[in-house]
């Protein structure tokens, strides 16, 4: 009997498989306490997915928070050592406001962080783990990768206010080209740059089709080394065994205050939202006064719940018995059924509203079928 198939729900199974995947790559398990000081989150609230935090005053008068995020706790404890990289994975409950219900929810989140002297290999490794995480969840998956430095360099070369930049980024994230071109025109962005931003936002495809277009599109608008660095990284990724699921998509954008370089999102067929999200967040590290660079991602296990197979009944078998039957005989009959892999519930009479795959009766040492409507 396969215990995982009968007892574990899909998201629970995946959570165990991901933990073992990350451990194989030398990531250590980061276990944190349920609460953190509120102060840790307050200065960089925008980094959090939802900025509502459950707070309470601790016995010593300090304002505490039920953790809305794990990354900050890992960063707080990281130490910079030149040339080295710290690798952590986590599997924690976080507390956030759900967009659907506008109420707080406990959400199980798994993810990893790679902090220190991040080089090309570290980025490749994190993207490989993101791809393998998606493949663990489903055979039909896509990892979409974007490069924020292109967008930043184009926007920084024109004088735009932060509000204008954010409005443009929002349009890029929605692949909303009609509003993006309107915004560019209103902000006085020249035709070449406006066209580049629009083409980046609409671009979606395999690296081998997108890369040649990029060179033509971005030459003269971004630094040559930025273009070369992205091309170089993509070529490494294209050589990976999982490259079949890789797509370039510049509509994957993140908050300019925290993220830079590579950002990515993962999708699996049948789940309407991204199940994985991550990127480089050197700008956050800098804001927090860290010397290290960092990259990481989170897997939203709650979004996988809808893939759990719903139970159709309380147990495969209801085994009915009358008072006075041999306890030993009844036990043995039930055990024989359980050994066949069935879940068995013993009842003298069927409880109201309960549902069973089949109903059996134990009498005179024999097990016989009972009509469902009996």
């Amino acid at each position, binding site marked *: 009997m396969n215990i995982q198939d009968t007892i574990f729900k899909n998201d629970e199974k995946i959570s165990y498989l991901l933990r073992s995947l990350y451990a194989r790559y030398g990531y250590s398990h980061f276990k944190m306490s349920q609460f953190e000081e509120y102060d840790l989150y307050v200065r960089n609230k925008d980094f959090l997915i939802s900025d509502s935090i459950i707070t309470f005053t601790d016995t010593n008068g300090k304002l505490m928070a039920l953790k809305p995020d794990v990354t900050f706790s890992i960063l707080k404890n990281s130490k910079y050592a030149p040339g080295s990289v710290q690798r952590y994975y986590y599997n924690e409950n976080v507390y956030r406001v759900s*967009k659907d219900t506008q109420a707080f929810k406990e959400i199980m989140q798994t993810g990893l962080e790679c902090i220190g002297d991040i080089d090309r290999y570290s980025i490749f490794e994190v993207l490989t783990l993101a791809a393998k995480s998606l493949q663990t969840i489903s055979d*039909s998956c*896509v990892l*979409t990768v974007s490069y924020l430095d292109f967008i930043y360099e184009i926007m920084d070369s024109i004088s735009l206010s932060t509000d204008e930049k954010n409005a443009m980024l929002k349009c890029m994230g*929605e*692949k*909303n080209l*009609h*509003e993006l071109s309107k915004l560019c025109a209103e902000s006085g962005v020249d035709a070449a740059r406006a066209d580049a931003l629009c083409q980046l936002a609409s671009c*979606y495809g395999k690296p081998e089709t997108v890369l040649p277009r990029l060179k033509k599109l971005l030459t003269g608008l971004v630094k040559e080394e930025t273009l070369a660095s992205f091309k170089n990284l993509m070529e490494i990724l294209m050589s990976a065994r999982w490259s079949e699921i890789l*797509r370039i998509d510049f*509509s994957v954008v993140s908050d300019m205050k925290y993220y830079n370089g590579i950002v990515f999102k993962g*999708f*699996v*067929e*049948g*789940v*309407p*939202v*991204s199940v994985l999200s991550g990127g480089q967040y050197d700008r956050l590290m800098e804001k927090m006064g860290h010397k290290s660079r960092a990259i990481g991602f989170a897997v939203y296990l709650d979004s996988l719940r809808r893939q759990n197979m719903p139970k159709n009944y309380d147990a495969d078998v209801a085994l009915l018995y009358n008072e006075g039957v041999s306890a030993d005989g009844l036990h043995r009959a039930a055990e024989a059924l359980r050994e066949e892999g069935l879940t068995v519930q013993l009842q003298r009479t069927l409880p109201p509203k309960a549902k069973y795959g089949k109903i059996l009766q134990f009498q005179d040492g024999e097990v016989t079928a009972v009509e469902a409507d009996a």
Partner: protein
Amino acid sequence: MKPMLNIALPKGRLGEKVYAMFEKAGFDCPAIRETNRKLIFENAENGVRYFWVKPSDVAIYVEHGVADIGVAGKDILLEYEPDVYELMDLDIGKCRMAVAAKEDFYDDPEHTLRVATKFSNIARNYYRSQGRDIDIIHLNGSIEIAPILGLSDVIVDIVETGTTLRENKLAVVETIVPISARLIANKSGFRFKNEPITKLMEQMSKLLEEEK
């Protein structure tokens, strides 16, 4: 068999107009033209399945991935802010979101403005950007009556021709944003059904160009 492209259309005249465009673009489903009360129509050969839903619900069907694409008014997208791609402006169903008030309305800046609307989020965001203190009165219909009866100072609502406003002695004070129908897509569906969605967008762009 082709994977099905699920399309949510807004019930009513706008939806029928949009279907005619999709049909011309090669995404036809003849069953939809039959007169009956069915809400779901399929053309397996062409790989399309259409649903008729309430116009304000299209974005919900698309955001939750039950529909891969759909057509929704910009008013609905601004009000509910669904996490979807806004792929195209279809240039139909054109109107504007506006602030309207009694013809003799004077906006006293020292007074908290009472705003009656169905579009609370749009109204809140608009006045926040103006730095104006407001009280929202959320109504579900017949918004025009609110300033006449003194329930509110102004209304925020969709204005098409302005006839209803004029007949009730109201006038547009300010246009907040122009509205039209938009082609939207689920962010996951866009990736897994990229080929038919891209094909539809190309065909629709051609149609829009021809109509210009």
